[in-house]
């Protein structure tokens, strides 16, 4: 089976600093791949390269065979790549529902004139994306339901903001979801919940998922495959157990033992 997302020989440097070096990475249809590595390994940079925030220096990125390099970020999103942010970037002053509805921009059509005139087509579209928003928020059970719909996003707790980010990303109707540390800052119970939700996301939405995560319990619980990065270079790839026992990964996380390094 051809992979959905494919990075081939991707490199990125900021000045003289090579952040990503000749990286190959694939994510298949409905596959969950975890990207791990110590701080500064270049994980979030990979997300920024895929979504077009940074321009690739060298190499190719394709989604379902279509080239993504050089497209502006909103075009890449419309092709089917959606992401969440490590440092939450919600539209804080908009309501919970509007956050999700805003992300449906890409697959609605009504222009300025039709919106001002409130044509039947525009109103139908509005009803559709409102229903879409409710459906996406309902995915998280009672957490984002009811009175919270019309609350501004800034009134949500940290964990609910993380959930809202995922709901917003899914509202762009993606083929692949890029989740940047979905369990960061969550307590153990919430972490366990998010682990189940990621698996459920794949089942319900038929998404492929590329996830950056530091919590190894989450990584172990969800991953079909794990890719480990260090200093912008892929140092290991395979099942969780293979990567977790890989000596280069241990070295990257823990450093060399004094005896071995001599």
């Amino acid at each position, binding site marked *: 089976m051809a992979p959905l997302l494919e990075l081939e020989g991707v490199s990125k440097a900021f000045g003289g600093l090579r952040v990503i070096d000749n990286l190959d990475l694939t994510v298949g249809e409905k596959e969950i791949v975890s990207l791990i590595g110590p701080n500064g390994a270049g994980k979030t940079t990979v997300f920024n390269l895929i*979504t077009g*925030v940074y321009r690739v220096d060298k190499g190719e990125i394709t989604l379902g065979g279509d080239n993504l390099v050089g497209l*502006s*970020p*909103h075009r890449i*999103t*419309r092709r089917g790549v*959606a*992401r969440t*942010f490590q440092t939450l*970037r*919600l*539209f*804080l*002053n*908009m309501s919970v529902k*509007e*956050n999700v*509805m*805003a*992300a*449906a*921009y*890409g697959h*609605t059509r*009504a*222009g*300025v004139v039709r*919106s*001002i*005139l*409130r044509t039947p087509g*525009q109103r139908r*579209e*509005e009803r559709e*994306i409102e229903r879409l928003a409710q459906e996406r928020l309902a995915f998280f059970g009672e957490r984002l339901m009811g*009175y*919270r719909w*019309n*609350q*501004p996003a*800034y*009134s*949500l*707790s940290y964990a*609910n903001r993380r959930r809202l980010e995922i709901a*917003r*990303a899914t*509202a*762009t109707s993606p083929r692949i979801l890029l989740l940047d540390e979905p369990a960061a800052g969550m307590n153990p119970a919430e972490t366990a919940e998010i682990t189940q939700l990621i698996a459920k996301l794949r089942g319900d939405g038929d998404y492929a998922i590329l996830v950056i995560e530091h919590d190894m319990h989450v990584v172990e619980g969800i991953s079909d495959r794990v890719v480990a990065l260090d200093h912008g270079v892929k140092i290991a790839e395979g099942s969780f157990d293979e990567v977790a026992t890989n000596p280069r990964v241990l070295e990257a996380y823990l450093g060399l033992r004094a005896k071995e390094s001599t």
Partner: protein
Amino acid sequence: MADPPTRPQIGADEWVARSAERSAAGRARTWAEQTPAPIRYGALAVVVTLIALVPVMTSDEYILRVGVVSLIYALLALGLNVSVGLAGLLDLGYVAFYGFGAYGYALLSSSKFGVHWSLWETLPLVLGTSILVGFLLALPSRRLVGDYLAIVTLFFGQIFYTIAVQGYRVPLITFHGTHDITGGPNGIADVDDFRVFGHHLTTNRAYFWFSLIAVVVVFTAIHFLNESRTGRAWRAHRDDPLATELMGMPINWLKLLAIAVGASVGALAGTINAASLHGAFPDDYSTPVLITIYAMVILGGAGSLLGVVLGALTVNILLEVLRTPDHARWILYIAIVVALLAKVRPWRKLAAVLAGTLAFGIAVHAIVAAAWPRGVHGLVSISGTDFSNGGWFGWALRHWLVLPAHTYEEGQYTWFNVALVALIGLVLVLTMVRGWVRWALLVPTLWLAALVWETRLVEEGTGPTRFLLLGAILVVLMAARPQGFLGTHRVEIV
């Protein structure tokens, strides 16, 4: 403020979400939101009808003229609110579109070039061109954000003003000599009235209704736009441009659109202004006007449509009321007392400050009266109204302040200038001290403020004082309510 001890789970999700229930303003907002839409729109319709009845109830041309200008400002505030309030773009070139509309209409419907198009021919052309110019302005600046966008657009506004002022000697290559296009500093006079469906709009009353209809139409259009995908994308852009683009919204296009939509509203206001004034003059479209519109938008609450209209009406009507010294005097003293009532707690402290101010004035008055043979019961003002000479308030002021006799006859203003400088110094010191020193200092500051007001500022009511007082009122209002009248408190980083 002390929190009630029984409040449960402070900081919990639901506690934050239900924060509105714990403040009076929040409860009012919730109540307004929960009122069924037909009732809310009905209430709005009643208010609009009441405003529409103003020209029926009065035939005072001055009041009607103030009404027309207020409504034009309301239009301008609505237009500026699109780029500033909704999309979060600091557009300082907005006033150029206002002028563009006025000059566009003036050139196509006046005796300047003998062109006399009707409104229905001019308006689409002017609005269409202003949208185009809006695009052209936004095109090079679409990669700019924040301060940089502000600089570029401010530059654009200044270019427009320069062209309008210098446009009376334009060298066209195909002709000899220079040509007068804009009338230069004198502007374009003799602009036609609006002709709508065969009617000539000649009276202020007619322009009042025309402007009111324009405000209602523009308000509705922008309200619908704000509730659509475009409006959501604008508001998303205001909160986080990067996330907006990564959620599939084309931010460059959205920025162009916001500036162009605002431009067309500004141009519409410009045509109404030119027609109702029968002229287009460059100083009506310069930076001070821009600042006034910004003050309206910020005071009303950027982002709230009803708020910015309210802000426009408040600021413009306040500026008019302040033209009359006696009105301005009342507003000053009432504003001071209201500010003290709102800010000084507990009431014992408030009473002490008020009594102290009164006693301080009476004491200073008595000492100076005993030591100075000249007499300290000078006129409160030379404006000559009964209020200044007689009336209990005028009498009280003369026995509280130190107003040397025959000042105006002898033209000795030096003392008052010294007092003004001392007042500014006192206010500065006041902001730096804390605790009881501040309350003690407040007493002479209030007294000196009244003295400076009665001797200097009230005389310049039509000039700088108006704006000085407006500025002071705005500072106080914004300190009390930073988000503006109807604005929502915005959270940037949490």
